[in-house]
């Protein structure tokens, strides 16, 4: 296969003990300073008050990492096609709908229903950012980050366009939590471009591989990586945070993984 080469222009990050890329990157480099704490979700920016009230955790997460990544890139979020990857969408909203449908009164709230679509966060992002280009929303269970990454990489390489990749997951409340124990919210945003720019952070060259996915040995981040689908991105984020060249393998399907050569641009 042809290697897929793109450039990273911006990064957004939010997860347990990781409040944004600027403050989180040093913690990824020096894991001894990392303290795992519950993810803190900021109020959603860019939405009118009526919409703001309706948004769940996954929307807050997507907006936070999306705006952080695009601000760093210097690109207008309105002009960027997006790829949104998530294993489960808005778990709390889904739980509430199932509760109502199992009750004697099955009347759903209209807002609950339209927020139940897997692409709700992508829809709110397009409204908040005024983004009218395409938005591709993918799910591949635990492989959702890699599936979103491949969707974004092929779009950048084939259509020669910059793309914003957003990978976000949040927990389910009980009783679904026992069946799908995602412990906390984690989101990552990456602005990827086809050509190198003055401001490019790193070059990524991806291929499919049989090699096993990288783990993060001797680090509390490994438990985060292994338990939240969007956090399967952490080996890549660690390498980007260290600003050093190297090779990482990201978890994907049972049959194959995604190998990425990382080369810092600055």
């Amino acid at each position, binding site marked *: *296969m*042809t290697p*897929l080469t793109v450039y990273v222009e911006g990064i957004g990050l939010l997860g347990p003990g990781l409040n944004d890329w600027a403050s989180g990157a040093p913690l990824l480099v020096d894991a001894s300073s990392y303290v795992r704490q519950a993810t803190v979700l900021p109020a959603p920016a860019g939405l009118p008050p009526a*919409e703001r009230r309706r948004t769940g955790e996954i929307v807050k997460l997507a907006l936070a990492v999306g705006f952080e990544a695009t601000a760093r890139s210097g690109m207008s979020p*309105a002009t960027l*096609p997006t790829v949104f990857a998530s*294993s489960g*969408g808005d778990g709390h909203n*889904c739980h509430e*709908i*199932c509760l109502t*449908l*199992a009750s004697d009164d*099955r009347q*759903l*709230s*209209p807002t*609950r*229903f*339209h927020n*139940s*679509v*897997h*692409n*709700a966060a*992508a*829809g*709110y992002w*397009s*409204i908040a*950012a*005024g*983004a*009218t*280009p*395409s*938005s*591709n*929303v*993918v*799910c*591949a*269970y635990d492989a959702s980050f890699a*599936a979103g990454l*491949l*969707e974004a*990489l*092929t779009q950048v390489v*084939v*259509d020669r366009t910059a793309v914003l990749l957003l990978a976000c997951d949040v927990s389910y409340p*009980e*009783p*679904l939590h*026992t*069946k*799908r124990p995602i412990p906390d919210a984690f989101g990552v945003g990456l602005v990827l471009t086809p050509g190198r720019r003055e401001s490019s952070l790193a070059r990524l060259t991806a291929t*499919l591989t049989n090699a096993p996915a990288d783990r993060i040995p001797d680090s509390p981040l490994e438990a985060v990586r292994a338990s939240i689908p969007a956090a399967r991105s952490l080996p890549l984020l660690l390498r980007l945070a260290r600003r050093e060249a190297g090779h990482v393998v990201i978890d994907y*399907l049972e*049959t*194959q993984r995604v190998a990425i050569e990382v080369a810092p641009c600055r």
Partner: protein
Amino acid sequence: MTPLVLTHFTATSCIGRGLHETLAALKERRTGLAPCAFESVELDTHIGEVPGVDGERLPDGLQEFDCRNNRLAQLALRQDGFMAAVEKSARRWGRRRVGIFLGTSTSGILETELAYRHRDPATGALPDSFQYRGTHNAFSVADFARQALNLEGPAAVVCSACSSSAKVFGSARRMMEAGLIDAAVVGGVDSLCLTTLYGFHSLQLVSRLPCRPFDVTRDGISIGEAAAFALLERVPATLDSNAVTLLGIGESSDAYHMSSPHPEGRGARTAMLQALETAGLTPQDIDYINLHGTGTPSNDSAEGRAVAAVLGSKVPGSSTKGATGHTLGAAGALEAVICALALQQDLMPAGLNTREVDPTTGVDYLLENRRGRVAHVMSNSFGFGGSNCSLIFGRGRRGRRDE
């Protein structure tokens, strides 16, 4: 874009299992919509239920995937020799070189809805038999179909509501052009569940009667279910004159509202224009448009404006949702297959149930089946969250005008 060929395709909906029954229903102008008697649902509405779905038994090794959505997927995969065609492609290219990209909106959520009725009275726990990964998670249907088809290539579910299984054509096209794969199974599967029946009801978007797209009296959708699949490959050196090709794709976002379309159809317009541009075609080249045409007042009005702005008011069009119902995440793939039949049969299917076309929509809406040369067709799919996708298909090499 580089055209791709639909080597094989199939569809199963309330109007029929497989292509033969689907085509017969279109020719006979037969709707599959009937009064709702699904599960314990008490809503005064019509639905498009596929008979016999629950009679499907999944293979022994794939029981963890057992749910209505995957049963419907298997029922459809078994039609028209589709599984054999995929096997032939997998042997030709290698199992890891065949990807699978399927659309769904609600996956196997019906299983979760039923499991919530059977929570443990003391602990609130879901029954042990409930399988989250195999039924609830959106990836379930691609995971299941990939294993049932014995494929090992890249896989994803596209989950952007009612545009899902149109957009899978875009994901597959990019993967193929990037050289990651040589062939792709694309499609859509969505099955009846309480979430969508009660959800659309809560938004007051469901008609009591069989839906009447583009009618002056249209008052909502009829919910249906379907599974449709296509095998996409690169166009070979010699191409059968009856072969159906994917020529253009347009994708856009409304950035306007979660559940209402932009009133002027802004995003729809962009998607249609981009589809024409990527196909290298002009509006005059489009012989028939399969409209999204859900039958709600605002959707059809917005789409009509967009179609009139892009294609003018002379291109014959119809929504086949009067026959099949709105099959949500499966609609893009189902209507792609209907477009393929339209191309092969020179048949422009009528929009059923509609009596008086809304003159303000500006579309040449077909109330009767029409025969005539069909070289290029456009299919529209628009979803919640303002997600829009337009596809253009042709017949033979570059449509038949070059032959």
